[in-house]
């Protein structure tokens, strides 16, 4: 009888014994990491919609002897339903398309190309990852952090390097929210005071509804013809935007922006956190990925500013090259950074509208870049 009671009590202590043993040390560290993610989300408002559920998934999977990610575990069910099938990031893309207003883009289409330059960091980071010893598919997934677009990163990594999903996702979302910290020093280093102080006039004018309706269809057709492998990504963004601009399916648009996006964000965050089990996550590769993710954003900014400087030269000094830094997909953060940095040198300089053009270009540019990468990979025979 006493033996049975002691055995039962022993069962209650297994978890704590494991956590404070050498085997449980990685899990203990990840429980602290979960706490850091909560602190960033709650105290500092750093991407709380994602970091909070990611932190919670990390907590659940690192509690000792947790079965949440084992066969028939709750997080495994969510993971298999939406991450393995890639449905979660695609549903989020519908919401992103529904939330995006492309009007700023139409007022100055030439600034659109800054959104292309803002993706060049993908390819530099890809090369660096190869040099550091990652495989070609892993390097593509790491390079895609440079798209500065969480769902795109998850779409690629869940398909081509699922063992890196935790590290790549945390890198992508963390650095996106750190853009206001990463970009200003680069802008100061690359631009002269004169360049930073260039005033830009506010672009006026409106856009016809038919243009707004046709735009997502045309972008989808062009990208689909060139890179059909990217149709899921581009298709979902364009669906969301098409619904928004048609103005005849307000309920669907509203649901895409709100209920669907919110539910999927919650489940996706939990699933990403669930891949952060200590023994899998705490490796040298994770640190390398975090470093490469940082470099991806840096290179995006550098190339955006270089194209901005070129525009400044060609326009005879009418375009402030700071808006080149807004060509990333982190919307509308990059545009706000451009506005803030510009006003530091000239309080009467309002760069927000032209920066929003570039930022919107970056949003669509990231999806186009990802689609093109998929198409090239298919052409090289790397993917079916």
């Amino acid at each position: 009888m006493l033996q049975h009671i002691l055995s039962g009590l022993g069962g209650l202590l297994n978890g704590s014994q494991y956590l404070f043993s050498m085997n449980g040390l990685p899990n203990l560290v990840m429980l602290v990491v979960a706490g850091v993610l909560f602190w960033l989300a709650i105290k500092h408002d750093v991407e709380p919609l994602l970091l909070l559920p990611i932190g919670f998934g990390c907590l659940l999977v690192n509690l000792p002897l947790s079965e949440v990610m084992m066969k028939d575990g709750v997080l495994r069910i969510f993971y298999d339903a939406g991450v393995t099938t890639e449905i979660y990031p695609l549903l989020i893309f519908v919401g992103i398309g529904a939330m995006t207003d492309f009007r700023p883009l139409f007022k100055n289409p030439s600034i659109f190309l800054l959104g292309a330059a803002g993706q060049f960091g993908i390819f530099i980071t890809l090369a660096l990852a190869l040099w550091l010893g990652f495989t070609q598919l892993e390097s593509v997934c790491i390079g895609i952090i440079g798209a500065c677009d969480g769902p795109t990163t998850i779409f690629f990594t869940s398909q081509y390097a699922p063992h890196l999903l935790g590290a790549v996702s945390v890198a992508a979302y963390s650095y996106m929210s750190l853009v206001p910290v990463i970009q200003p020093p680069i802008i100061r280093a690359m631009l002269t005071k004169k360049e930073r102080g260039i005033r830009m006039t506010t672009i006026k004018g409106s856009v016809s509804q038919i243009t707004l309706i046709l735009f997502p269809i045309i972008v989808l057709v062009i990208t689909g013809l060139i890179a059909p492998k990217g149709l899921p990504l581009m298709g979902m963004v364009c669906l969301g935007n098409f619904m928004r601009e048609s103005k005849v399916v307000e309920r669907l648009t509203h649901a895409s922006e709100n209920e669907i996006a919110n539910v999927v964000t919650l489940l996706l965050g939990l699933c990403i956190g669930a891949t952060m089990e200590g023994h899998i996550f705490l490796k040298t590769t994770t640190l390398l990925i975090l470093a490469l993710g940082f470099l991806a954003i840096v290179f995006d900014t550098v190339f955006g500013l270089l194209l901005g400087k070129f525009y400044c030269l060609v326009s005879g000094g009418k375009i402030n090259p700071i808006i080149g830094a807004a060509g990333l997909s982190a919307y509308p953060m990059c545009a706000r950074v451009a506005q803030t940095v510009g006003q530091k040198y000239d309080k009467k300089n309002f760069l927000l509208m032209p920066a929003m053009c570039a930022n919107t270009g970056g949003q669509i540019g990231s999806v186009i870049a990802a689609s093109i990468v998929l198409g090239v990979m298919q052409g090289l025979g790397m993917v079916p």
Partner: protein
Amino acid sequence: MQSMDNVSFAVTMAITGAGGTFLVMWATSIIVRFLMKIFPAEEQQ
């Protein structure tokens, strides 16, 4: 599946990926200008 050395892969991705992105966005910007001309906003009409 083609096997490529890493240098060739990186260069190929940079040229086709970056170049392709630039070309598609340039083509899109041309189409946007075209649409703005064909379908001007109501105030402009």
